[in-house]
Structures are given as structure tokens and as C-alpha cells.
């Protein structure tokens, strides 16, 4: 029905979007069937088809609730319509003309019956909800490690903590890797205002509130990339505060962790361009960004030691390609108006050198 309704309307809009519109509903209707485990799917934030135990059990509950909701809405609307036509209709000839009035009995039966049904359904829903709530409260097994996530305007910092070996901790940003099939504990703190940590294909939200540390856990049962996004309004760039969760095979995850522990590679001897880039980066960017193993040690912005391991930049706003990287460094305020990263004062060659240097950070 929606499709028909809407096919009649687009004439209001410019014709060039009609093509896109015609395709869109097909994609979205198909989306539950498509595995959302890749961000490339049409609905990466859809949460009625999920890929972890927390999301799965919630999705069943939500489907149940939605089915009841839709059923009740249709039933009641049909009752209203039937009721309207049931006894025939009077019409109002002229204002003030008296019409018949009656006081037929039988109305109360509706209420008693309706009340009884409503109450039964609600009791069932309360029990179901509590059951699910208890299920998602804690993971089945003790998580092997913790990711300390710090939300801030407008990106996510993540510190991986190995409880057995403190020296194996490291910091990264916006793209989190987890081992597939294992629960991971996540603690949430804020450096400024309230945010909310949300990866819909895996689990519901947990708010990130200054002055307190909230806890949640995640588990992905299928390898893939899951999109997350800040869900609590946090200011100008709330719209561009996304994150990605990569669920890796255990060995791949271990390799990733080991790689993250390493400092950045030294700039190779003899490359003037990279040497300039490294120096300019330290001068222009090092106050806010850290690259471990160099003198750049700022903490206000994301740690860039392994920037090239990430698929995106600017909190999953832009793909991590040389072109976007240059554009972002040159004019972050255009890409993400209001971002805390200022527009730098760089010449073309300096920008080029920095970008080339950044591309060595893998």
C-alpha cells in the first residue's frame, strides 16, 4: 500500500530522485533477508535481524511486540469503521434540527471484555520482557577482556585492557575489533557530555554519562562489520559520531591485537617527503594526536599509530582513502562543521607530505 501511495506523490519533488526512490523500497523491504553483517548492506543499522545473542533475543521480543501492536491497531480501526456503518447513519439536515436520542444497553460488555483481553496480553508481555531483560543483563561466560570506551564530541576512544598483562594495553579509536563468538565487556565513560553507545545489529544502547562508568557487553556470532552510532544527542556533530565493530576470527583478532601493540614504523632513511611529513605532523597535529614511537603524543584527538588499519576517518564519516584523507586534513570544518579539529594552516606541499606520512602508519 505504501508503495502505491508514494508512487503517486513524487511529482512534488524533482524528477531526478524518482529513479532512486523507485528502487529504495525494494532494497529496504529485502533488507531483513540480506545479512546485515556487512556495512555495505542497505540497512546497516537495522536491528530486527541481528548477529549476537543479545540482539537476537531482543529482536524476537520486538517482533512479538510489533506483531501485537499492528494487530491491535488494525483490529481497533476495523471496529471503528464497522461501528460507524452498523446501525445506518443519520444526517444533519440543518443546524439545530433535533435528532433522535437513545440509550441502548450493552456498552459495558465491551469494556469488560476489552479490559480482560488487554490485561492478559500485558501480563504475558511483562513476563516475556523480564525474561529477556534477565537474559541480556550478563553474558553467559565471563568476558576475556575489557574495552574501555570513552565517548567525546564527536568520536570514540577505545582502550583495550588485557586483565592478565597490563603491558598489553593499547588505545585506538572509532573502529573496534572483537573476537567472533566471545563476549566482550565494554565500560563506558564520557569526557564531556552524554553520549550513547549503540551497535544495533549486536545489542541495545547504553548511555555514556560523565561522572559515572556504565557497563555493557557485546558478542557477535558471525564475522563481519557492524555499524554503530551515538544515540544520545551530544551537540553539533551528533550526526557524525559513528563507530564500527569488526568481528574477527579468533586468530585474526589476536594478530590484530598484537599489531596494535607495536609502535609506528620509523620513517625510512632518505625519504625527504616522509621526513617533512613526519615533522609537519608533529608540529601541526602532534599536540592533539598521538603516534606511538614518535614525539607526537597528544591525547585530545584519536591515536593515529595504526591509522591505515582503519577503514574510515572522522568517526566513520569518510572512507579512509588518500583523497578523503587529504580533504579531511585540509578542511575538517567543511566535512564536519563544528568538529573540534581546527582547519590547519598548511601549504599544499606540507599537506601532501603529511598525507604521505599518514599513509605509512599501518
Amino acid at each position, binding site marked *: 500500500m505504501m508503495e502505491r501511495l*508514494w508512487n503517486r*506523490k*513524487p511529482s512534488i*519533488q524533482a524528477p531526478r*530522485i524518482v529513479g532512486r*526512490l523507485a528502487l529504495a523500497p525494494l532494497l*529496504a523491504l529485502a*533488507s531483513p533477508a540480506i545479512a546485515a553483517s556487512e556495512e555495505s548492506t*542497505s540497512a*546497516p*543499522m*537495522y*536491528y530486527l535481524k541481528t548477529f549476537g545473542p543479545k540482539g537476537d533475543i531482543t529482536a524476537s521480543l*520486538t517482533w512479538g*511486540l510489533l506483531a501485537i*501492536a499492528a494487530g*491491535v*491497531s488494525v483490529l*481497533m*480501526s476495523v*471496529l*471503528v469503521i464497522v461501528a*460507524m456503518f452498523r446501525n*445506518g*447513519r443519520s*444526517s444533519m439536515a440543518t*443546524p*439545530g434540527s433535533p435528532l*433522535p*436520542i437513545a440509550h441502548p444497553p*450493552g*456498552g459495558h460488555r*465491551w*469494556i469488560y*471484555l476489552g*479490559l480482560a483481553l*488487554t490485561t492478559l496480553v*500485558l501480563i504475558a508481555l511483562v513476563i*516475556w520482557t523480564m525474561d*529477556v*531483560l534477565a537474559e*541480556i543483563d550478563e553474558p553467559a561466560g565471563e568476558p576475556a577482556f575489557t574495552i574501555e570506551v570513552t565517548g567525546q564530541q564527536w568520536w570514540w576512544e577505545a582502550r583495550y585492557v588485557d586483565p592478565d598483562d597490563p603491558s598489553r594495553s593499547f588505545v585506538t579509536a572509532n573502529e573496534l575489533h572483537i573476537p567472533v563468538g566471545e563476549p566482550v565487556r565494554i565500560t563506558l565513560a564520557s569526557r*564531556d*557530555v552524554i553520549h*550513547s553507545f549503540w551497535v*544495533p545489529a549486536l545489542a*541495545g*544502547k547504553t*548511555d555514556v*554519562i*560523565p*561522572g*559515572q562508568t*556504565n557497563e555493557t557487553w557485546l558478542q557477535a556470532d558471525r564475522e563481519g562489520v557492524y555499524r554503530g552510532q551515538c*544515540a*544520545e*544527542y551530544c551537540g*553539533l*556533530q551528533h*550526526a557524525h559520531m559513528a563507530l564500527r565493530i569488526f568481528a574477527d576470527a579468533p586468530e585474526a583478532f589476536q594478530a590484530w591485537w598484537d599489531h596494535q601493540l607495536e609502535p609506528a614504523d620509523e620513517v625510512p632513511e632518505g625519504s625527504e617527503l616522509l621526513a617533512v611529513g613526519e615533522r609537519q605532523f608533529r608540529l601541526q597535529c602532534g599536540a592533539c594526536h598521538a603516534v606511538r614511537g614518535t614525539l607526537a603524543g597528544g591525547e585530545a584527538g584519536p591515536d593515529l599509530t595504526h591509522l591505515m588499519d582503519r577503514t574510515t576517518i572522522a568517526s566513520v564519516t569518510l572512507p579512509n582513502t588518500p583523497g578523503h584523507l587529504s580533504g579531511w586534513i585540509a578542511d575538517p570544518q567543511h566535512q564536519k562543521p563544528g568538529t573540534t579539529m581546527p582547519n590547519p594552516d598548511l601549504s599544499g606541499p606540507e599537506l601532501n607530505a603529511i598525507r604521505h606520512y599518514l599513509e605509512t602508519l599501518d
Partner: protein
Amino acid sequence: MAVDYQKRPEAGYVTKELEAKLHKMWETKPGLFGVIATVDHKVIGIRYIVTAFAFLVVGGLQALLMRLQLAQPDQTILTPEQYNQLFSMHGITMIFLYALPILSGFSNYLFPLLLGTRDMAFPRLNAFSYWVYLASGLFMYASFLIGQAPNNGWFNYAPYALKPFNPGLNMDFYALGMVFFGISTTVGAANFVVTVMRNRAPGMSINRLPIMIWGTTTVSVGILLANPAVSLAFFLLWLDRQFGTHFYDTAGGGQPLLWQHLFWIFAHPWVYIIVLPAMGMVSDALPVFCRRPLVAYTLVILATITTMLLGFGVWVHHMFATGIPFLSMSYFSGASFIITIPSAIATFAWIATIWTGRVVVTTAFLYFAGFISMFVIGGVSGVVTASVAADLQLHDTYFVVAHIHYVLIGINLFGVLGGLYFWFPKMSGKMLSERLGRWNFWLTFLGFNLAFLPMHWTGLLGMPRRIYTYPEGAGWSWVNMLTTVGSFILAFGILLLFVNVWMSLRRGVAAGANPWDAPSLEWATASPPPAYNFTVMPVVASRHPLWEDRLGESEGHSSIERGLILDDGKEMLATSVIDAAPRAILKMPEDDPWPFLVTLAMTLGFTALLLHWWWIGLAAGVATLLGCVFWLWPRGDLAQTKGTAHE
């Protein structure tokens, strides 16, 4: 002027002489003084309605701008700051400056008429409440003039609302504006409660009150209990911003979540406050078009009161994601489910009324029928979010946006529009066009559902609220386009309403006293009613005074043509709380400019606080207090000072 302490009121019939005499006493004086000083509840009620509709239009235009921005991904029609100010002001406008004031307008206009009396309990306070509403609304809107409108949403969470993150005047406008607006809401609520308790037609015992009276009275008590929470929350915010207190900032041991508790303790009841009177309007007006009394009057009233009570116990369901303990979540989730039950009672009562009645299909009826459907959809989507586990996904997505719009547009606006088609003839003496009305209804209804039904899906596709744009790959493009198209159709539908009103005022069909053949007292007087409402004070013997002979179920007979004559100055009756037995004859105030002048002083005061003109603020405060002293100065003509005449 001295007044006797006692008298025995006389009963008599409506006569031309009496009408002329009363008219002289009660009419508002002409000219600017009358405009400023009038205390006529009908004039004030219409002012409320017109002002609230003006805010509805402004808030609607803001919504249309946002819908253009969101129609397609990655658009740059609006900057993030503009978008954030627009969505904040849209919420503030619709929730505060439209949704309650429109209901206050209807209640203001209708209360004395439905109750068979001549004015509200406090006519001057009534004028004051309107002036403060207008002034506080303009105060908040003045923020646009300097480009610093509130930009943190109507919910306005700390610490983003605090100075380090929000250094402009944006939040100060909102904080002070809401404290200011709260004064209007509070005195208005007190006025409704006292009017119901003390000023009714003799015989209108509480089991004979129209449901709309119950709805507004219930929420007025709710306002008296809830509103201080939000005024306080905003005042503390202002202190944090201006004087470095530590209520919400963590630096000095403050608690950001204190804001959320204070805000939602107020704001959840508020949601019921802005729908229950509309539900009451439907409960009164729908049966007229079903040609029968409402099914289960008593249960519907109990449901109204229960909803309000439960509404105070569910605020934490807005905070499920904040890391509160398991047990607490279970309780608030359960309570949120239970609140469905009273709503179900009302819904089944309406459906049973239509089912067992004989329907007269008018535009008003269509709005009420649509209202029931929308009410159910908004209600069941609320049940979905009441389930805490599901809510952790649904929270802060467009699913909730769809839900709140079904509640606010479906229940408030549809009830109000139906109510407008129903009571407009009383207010203006002219009928609205039914033909144009059908167009108005169907466009509004279809536009609304096209805009907001797919929006549930937008939410399930994971679109978070309050984002100024979204990437192309997110899969939200087509649903957003649908919503944008629907919202423009909805806006066009609303435009037709104004066309209809304008045409009707110019050349509408005369309505007569009772165009719908309706049962309650407001239809027993002329359309529009005279300044004094009723020439003689009617006496009520049943729930449906104008239907009772035909229904044949009342013990006595209501008396409308013959009643108590109160013509010794502006007089009306004080009656007892339960039975509405006459207790005293009250002297009512003349037109009075003090409410307006005090509002001016307060406006100056709040402006001074905003701009840190401390001395002017102090002076305005003193002026406000002095104004109140003059306003309340004991007066002989109000029988407040010692009299000379004894018997």
C-alpha cells in the same frame, strides 16, 4: 461601596430587561483599555486558541524546513547549528507553546459555560495566565532574533546545556523562558481546579460533570504537582550557568542525571497533561454524533484519574539506557505496561459508544473516529517501548519520534480539530463548511499517516533522533522522503482549516444556540454567548440537561429558562465541592489592567536576568510585587472590605 453580608437570591425567568442590565455590567469596555483589561473568559479562551494555533503554524514551518533537510541523505540546506535550533524550538513550541495552551484555550472558553456559571473563579488571574503565556512564548522566540535559539532539544540534557559546552544565550532563553511559562501554567491550573470545586450550576454534583471538565481538572492537579519539578530543574540549570553552582556538572560533585530525573518527573506526566483534556473533549463531543450518552461514564473518569496518577510513576522509562539497576528497570517497565489499562478503558468506551449509537457523520465525527485509530496506534507503539529490553534498541530512534507524533498529533491535534469543528459554532455563531471540512480532514489524516506511519520503520532501520543529516548508505533515504512528502500534505490540510475558518467567519451559516442538538449547558445559551453567559443561573438535575426529557432517566428536571437572578453587580454563585449546593454569592471583578501591567514588569525582569542587568531585574521584581499589592488591594465592590450596611 458597601455590600450586605447576606441575601436571599431570587428566582426568575429570562427577560429582555434583565439581559440588557446584565449586558451593561458584564461587557468588556471598548477600546485599548478593554483589550488590555478584559477578564471575560471567552475572550481569553479565544486568545489562547488563536495564539496556540499561531505557535502551531510556526512550529509546523520549522518542521517542514527540517523535513526538506532530511528528505535526502547528505543535504546541506541547513547547517548543523540551524537544524539543532530548529528541532529544539519545534519541540518546545509544539509541546509547551501549542499543546497545553490550545487545551487551556478550550477549557477557558468552555469551563464556565459547561459548568453553568459566568466566569472562572479568578477572572483576573485568568487574564494574567494568558498574558504570561504570550510573554513567555515571545521571550523564548526572541532568541531567534539574535540567532541563539535553544539548541539542545526540548529535553535539554545536562551537561550539554551547561556553559562550557553551550556558552551562548541559547540555554538562558530556554531556562528563564520555562520558569516564566511555568507561572502561566501553574496559575491557569489553579484557576481550573478552584472553578470546578467552587463555581458550578446548583445541582451539578460531581457525577454530572462533563468528562472534559474531569480531564482538565485532573491534569490541572497534575500540573500543580509536576510543574515545580521542571521550573526547578531549569532554575538550577540557570544557577549552574550563571553562578557556578554544581547541580549538574560533575566537576563539583554534581549529577547530570539529576536533570533527567527532575525533567522526566515533570515531562512524563506532562504527556498525559496534554492529552487527557483532549480525550475528555472527545468523550463529550463524540456521543453527540452517536446520538447517545457516552458508555461507561464513571469508568472513563476513573480511567482519566488513574492515568494521571500512574503517569507520576513511570518517568524512569525515559532513562532505561542510563545504567540504572535491574530491579528499578523491571519496576518502571511493569508500571509503563500497566498504564495501558486505563487507556484501553477509554478506547473501548468510545468504540462501544459508536457501536451502540446511530452515527451522524460530520467532519467533527471523522476527526474523532480518526482520533481513536491514531490513539490506538500511538498507544500500542508506547507499549512496545515500555518493554525495557526492546526499548534499549528503540530508544532515541525515529520509532519514538513516530510514537510521540501519534500521541501528540493523533490525540491532541485530532481531538482539538474535532473539538474546533464541534465548538466553533458556539464561539462564532457560524457553522464551518462541512464540504471544506471533508477535504481538510482527509488531507490532514492521509498526510499525517503518510508522514508518520513509515517513520516507525525509519526507527526500526536504526535512524537515531536529532541528527541533522545521514549518509546515503544508511538505508534511510526512501522512508525519509515519504515522511517529507506526507508532512507537506499534512501542512496543506491544516492550511485548509484556516481557509475554512476564514470563509465561515465571512459568510458561514448561522449556527443558532444548539446546532448539533447536544446535551450540555453551553448549548443552552446563545451562539456566541453573551458576556454574562447565562441570564439566570441554571439549575441542573442530570448529566445531560438538554437531553434529559428525551432520555427519561433523571429524577428531577433541570431548569434553564428559570433560575437564580444575580444582577446586583457582577455576581455568580459559589457552590459546594461535591453536590454543588449554593454556598455564597460572589462578587466578580471588573476589567482590570493590573494583570497586564504585572506581566510587563515580569517580562522586564526576566529580560534583565537574561542580560545580567541585575539592578533593573531588582526594580522589575519590586514593581511586580507592588503590582500584585495593587491588584489584590481589598475592594468594597468585591465585598472584601468591611461593610456599613447590616440587614
